[in-house]
Every structure is written in C-alpha cells, then in structure tokens.
C-alpha cells in the first residue's frame, strides 16, 4: 500500500499550461480557413481534370496560386494542431509522443512540398 495523500498524487498532474496558445492558434487558422477553403474548393475544383498545359497556365496566375499556397500552408498548420489533439486523446505513452512528432513532421513536409511545387509552377 502506498502512503501518498490525494493531494500529493494530484500535484503536477494538472494542465500542461499551454492550452490557451493552442486554442488561439486554432481560432485564428479556422477563421482564415473559413475564407480560404471555399476559395480553394472553387479555384482548384475548376481546373482539376484539365490538361497539363491548362493547369500550368492556370497556376501561373497570381490569384489561384496564392489561394492554393495560403490554403495548404494554413490548412496543414491547422491540421497539425488538430491531429495533435486527436492523438493526445486516444494514444498513450511512447506511442503518443512518436505519433505527434511523426504527424507534425508530415504536416510541415506536405506543406513545404506543396508550396515549393506551386511556386515552381507559377514562376
């Protein structure tokens, strides 16, 4: 039998004290995505299915290119925060840490590939 008091067991097990920053970043990115997501759906959706030449010409225009860059940049950052919450809720121990690190790396890598590709097409 352990002789720990309830108080002693609870100490240090509280909040991570960083939730406010996470929540605020979620709010900012979700407001941005409220505008960016519809713009991306209709710009990307209108060119998907076209030929290679048409796609290249389309994404050399500033508006569709910047919409795509902003949507994928902000979207993957929003995803990186959301998937961390998902993992924290269902995965425990070492697997949790590994999964969070893995998904954060995947999010930033995907955003970097997308942005590089769009800039390369546009320029």
């Amino acid at each position, binding site marked *: *039998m*352990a*002789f*720990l*008091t*309830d108080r002693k*067991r609870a100490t240090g097990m509280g909040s991570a004290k960083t939730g406010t920053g996470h929540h605020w970043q979620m*709010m900012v990115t*979700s*407001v941005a*995505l*409220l505008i960016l*997501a*519809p713009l991306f*759906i*209709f710009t*990307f*959706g*209108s060119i*998907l*299915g076209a030929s*290679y030449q048409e*796609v*290249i010409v389309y*994404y050399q225009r500033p508006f569709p290119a910047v919409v*795509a860059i902003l949507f*994928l940049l902000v*979207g*993957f950052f929003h*995803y990186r925060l*959301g*998937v961390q919450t*998902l993992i924290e809720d269902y995965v425990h121990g070492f697997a949790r840490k590994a999964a969070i690190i893995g998904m954060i790396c995947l999010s930033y890598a*995907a955003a970097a*590939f*997308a942005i*590089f*590709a*769009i800039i*390369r*097409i546009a320029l």
Partner: protein
Amino acid sequence: MADVNRGNRPLSPHLTIYRPQWTSMSSILVRITGNALIVAALMIVWWFVAAASGPAAFATANGFVTSWFGDLVMTLSVLGLWYHLLGGLRHLAWDSGRLLDVDKSEMAAQMMVVLSVLLTVFTVIVL
C-alpha cells in the same frame, strides 16, 4: 481517504455507454472529417508536385486523382470539408458565448448536416 479507488475510475468521454445524440455525434463527426481530410490533402500535394515535375509525372498523378476512386475521395472530401467548416463556425459561435443552450446547439448540428449536403451538391453541380 488516500487509498480509495486509485486510478480505475471511469474516464470520459464514456463513448461505450453514452446514448448517441445530436451534440455528441456532430462533434465526433467534426473530428473524423477534419482528420480524414489528410487523404485528399496528400493527394492534392502529390498532384501539385507532379505538375511541377513535368508532363509525365502529372499524367500519373492526375490519372489517379481524376479516376473513379480519386473522384470518390474528392467528392467525399468536399462534403467532409464543408461539414468541418460549418463545425468550425459553430465552435467560433460557442467561443463567443453563443449557441450554448442544448436546443440551439442541437439545431446547429442539424443545420451542419443539411447545409453541408446542400453545399456539396452545389459544389458538384458548379464544378
């Protein structure tokens, strides 16, 4: 006392014993749609990288993304994205202190389902 019921209390969210209701189901669906969007997102990233790489790579990626399977993923993802967007709108409303009553929150959930389907139909027709 200090030695009672240590660490084996039931933990939220009690999913296995919880009666399904509009508020919980719509919230779970926001999480599922948001995280499932990674599939379409990675396909789109592949599509852009292929377009930047050249016509041969683009033909492969574009062929996959516009195949029946790609169309299925993209259409479901449009539905998921609209639903998740409306869910985010509800979160922003909650954060501002609105829609917090149960009946209003349930109505918002029903609106999310209806509007996401209507917006998806609209999107598919327009595009």
